[in-house]
């Protein structure tokens, strides 16, 4: 399946673009997606934290991703 991933802040800068399309095996987990992105963009692994959001909620490691999901990478937030 193809996943479209929104990128923000330093994750956007590391990847060099605001969205990323990746092909992933059916039922890919949030954790699995992160691992494949870490392999591709090693600088992502150096962040204090990196979460996956699915449909505006933080996803658990084992959350299965689906093609129609709104997926985003969430580097350490620093609002306020």
């Amino acid at each position, binding site marked *: 399946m193809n996943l479209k991933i*929104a990128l*923000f*802040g*330093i994750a956007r*800068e590391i990847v060099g673009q605001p969205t990323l399309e990746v092909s992933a095996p059916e039922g890919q987990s949030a954790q699995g997606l992160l691992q494949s992105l870490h392999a591709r963009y090693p600088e992502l692994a*150096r*962040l*204090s934290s990196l979460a996956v*959001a699915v449909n*505006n*909620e*933080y996803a658990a490691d084992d959350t299965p991703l689906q093609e129609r999901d*709104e997926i*985003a990478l*969430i*580097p*350490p*937030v*620093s*609002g*306020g």
Partner: protein
Amino acid sequence: MIHIDLTDQPIDVSAALRSVEADGAGAINTFIGTVRNKSTGRPVVRLEYEAYDSMALHQLRKVAEQAAEQWPMVEKITVIHRKGTLHIGDVAVVVAVSTPHRAESFAACQYIIDTLKQVVTIWKKEFYEDGDVWVAAHP
């Protein structure tokens, strides 16, 4: 009653305060976060706030709803966060909470700003004379 906003315009603090007024509310606690002239000792020239808007608004509302649930006496909550370019002294965030009695207004307001800083999808980049940094990005 919860009011949430994420805006690239200057925050009207007075309007935010008025928005939580209620005849049954004797106590209003407000937290205002402004841009400081330095961060970890380094002079800050300006800031840029970037937001994942839809998730930030959703999470801001969730945090306010959690506060209203935890302190059921809460009358009204307003949370407004700025995005875009900010300079020294600019208001980045306002949290205002009204309650009948004061202890709950302090507790709920502090819960909201503390939790906001942990979960709301907003990122701050600090610009110095000689560079810039995404705050909290690295250990």
